[in-house]
């Protein structure tokens, strides 16, 4: 158990024709002892490459990775004292569960056979797979294989766990269960963990902190709520949260934002934040939009809109709303309301964008100019 530090870590792949592709660009994160860090981003953003560099499966082009204060850039994977859980589980198909779990101990420690089988039995009991130890991976269900893969990592008692989308091959129900269980296990064991996923729900629910990566560049590192409420930029704002934040391109005209379909007044604090920017992107989360079924817009932050599509989810409804009435393919934005609200496509409603829920981003740099106000403002680690 130890702290893991990535300092300016960069990976450049050189293609056969000499083209250089920067997969990971100057990523720096400090992961504290026992912390659960979720590395999240869309496919191809470099999150798996980052993880593989930490594991020693890829070389590091520039920068430094250290574990417990020891530089591990050039150590082979075997000497890093790191265990990894793969998306495909990567179990050894010809070995039983017990053999799969003892393999790492046999290869990397001086333990005797008795000690190894004791460790394996303890871990199997902890993972609830003690009845499966004599089976081969092919005879196990996906969820059981997943447990064996986790058990194989845990039994090694490594300095750090690396997990590469370990839950993505499970069905939705099992994934939710394993999410909780994995969190509980990690807390119990207190092992520093990097968890890679493309699923923002996993990122939000599991991590002590999340690191959001896009196109090889780290966008933000913070607690899930920091990233949710005070995103550093447009990408983070759009990536975190489901359904995604709504964005509107607006021109700045003094204290007024002027868009294609509506105008929005700024508070004095907001217009101060906007400062010199000429064009901004206005962002508002679907759950912050207030919907009134009756009445008409009678304040500058209220708008008459039409319901285009209703997606019922049971607990809540996702409304696709539009300013364009009677158009074939209208431009829509989303709002979530309680699942008990009776709304239908075609209804006219009043949507309110509360001033305190508004995010503003520079339209050119995409950096956040102003984030929504919270009762307890939290500082976010700034990425330079």
């Amino acid at each position: 158990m130890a702290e893991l530090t990535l300092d300016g870590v960069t990976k450049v792949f050189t293609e056969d024709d000499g083209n250089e592709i920067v997969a990971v660009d100057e990523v720096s994160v400090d992961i504290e002892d026992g912390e659960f860090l979720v590395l999240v981003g869309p496919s191809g953003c470099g999150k798996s490459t980052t993880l593989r560099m930490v594991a020693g499966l890829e070389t590091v082009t520039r920068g430094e990775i250290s574990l417990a204060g020891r530089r591990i850039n050039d150590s082979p994977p075997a000497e890093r004292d790191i265990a990894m859980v793969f998306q495909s589980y990567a179990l050894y198909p010809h070995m039983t569960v017990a053999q799969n779990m003892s393999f790492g101990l046999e290869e990397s420690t001086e333990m005797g056979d008795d000690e190894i089988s004791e460790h394996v039995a303890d871990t199997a009991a902890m993972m609830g797979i003690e009845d499966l130890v004599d089976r081969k991976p092919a005879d196990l269900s996906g969820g059981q294989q997943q447990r064996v893969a986790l058990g194989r990592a845990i039994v090694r008692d490594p300095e750090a766990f690396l997990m590469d989308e370990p839950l993505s091959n499970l069905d939705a129900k099992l994934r939710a269960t394993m999410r909780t269980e994995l969190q509980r296990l990690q807390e119990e064991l207190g092992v520093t963990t990097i968890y890679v996923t493309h699923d923002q729900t996993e990122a939000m629910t599991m991590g002590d902190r999340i690191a959001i990566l896009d196109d090889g560049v780290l966008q933000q590192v913070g607690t899930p709520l920091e990233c949710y409420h005070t995103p550093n930029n447009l990408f983070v704002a759009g990536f975190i949260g489901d359904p995604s934040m709504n964005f509107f391109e607006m021109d700045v005209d003094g204290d007024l934002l002027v868009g294609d379909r509506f105008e929005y007044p700024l508070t004095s604090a907001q217009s101060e934040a906007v400062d010199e920017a000429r064009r901004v992107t206005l962002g508002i989360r679907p759950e912050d939009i207030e919907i009134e079924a009756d009445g008409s817009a009678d304040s500058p932050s209220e708008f008459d809109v039409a319901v285009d599509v209703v997606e019922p989810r049971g607990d809540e409804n996702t409304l696709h709303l539009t300013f364009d009435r009677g158009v074939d393919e209208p431009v829509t934005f989303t709002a979530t309301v309680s699942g008990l609200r009776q709304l239908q496509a075609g209804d006219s409603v009043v949507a309110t964008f509360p001033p305190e829920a508004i995010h503003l981003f520079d339209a050119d740099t995409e950096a956040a100019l102003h984030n929504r106000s919270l009762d307890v403002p939290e500082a976010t680690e700034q990425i330079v």
Partner: protein
Amino acid sequence: MSTETGRVGEWSLFGHSLRRVVLYGILAGMGVFYLIPIETGIMTSIINPASYTGSFPYLPPLEPLVPGTGTFSLEPWQGAIDGLGQGLVNSVILVVPATIFSGLLGSMAAFGLTTISWRGQIGIYILFVAGIFIPYQAVLVPLTQFWYNVVPLQAVFEPLAVLPFVQEYHWKLVALIITHTAYGLPICTLLFRAHYKKLSDEMVEAAQLDGASVATIYRRIILPLSIPMFAVVFIYQFTQIWNDLLFALTIVQFGDAAVVTQDLVGIGVSQSGTNFPLRMAAALLAALPTLLVYIFFGDKFAKGVAA
């Protein structure tokens, strides 16, 4: 005419549809067609050579019950065992190690060229593949020169002849073993490489993270997962090397080290004529080991081909 088993409106014969009757008729005909040569061989091999001439080779030797079929005798088999005994022993000495070495080395080479990644491996692999396309005829003269004039294998082997079971002429078999191993290596590597490409990279990476060295990954992960492919390679190499005559003629040339294919060439041929029963018995005897290999490893072979 229609019955319960036949389809509606189909002709049937004794409760079987005409289609089936025709199908089985053709299958039986093809079975006979394929088996007649072997049956003829077996029947010929148990006829007394003296009574062979003029008999029908595919009929069992039932004289004096059926005239014109020859008299029964195991004399040809006795002659074949006597004539090929030394060759069979030499062939076994050659084939078993050559098959194991070419399979094992092919598997190791494929592991190094596929599972482990390093700079320049494609170039090396292309050299391996090119080996498949070198015609045997092109290497016959260099091969003779190599084993007889360049490498002093015979001189090295002389002192070893004092050991039990080792004969001085065995040096030729050692040369043959090395030659067949080298020549079989490319195709074995190719077969194993196709198999290893299908193995999960993540599994090998997991083993690396578990602390296994390259040698351990091969021994504990790759080798156990190669068993079906080893069955394929062993059957293929066993048959190839057992049936080879060209390299044996080139390297052994003649003498005590002659392998079974070489002995087979001359058996039963003399100035007084050809002893067909003896030749048939010898051919069957020489083919028997490959047949046994197919019977014992056939199911594993099928698994390996499907893998």
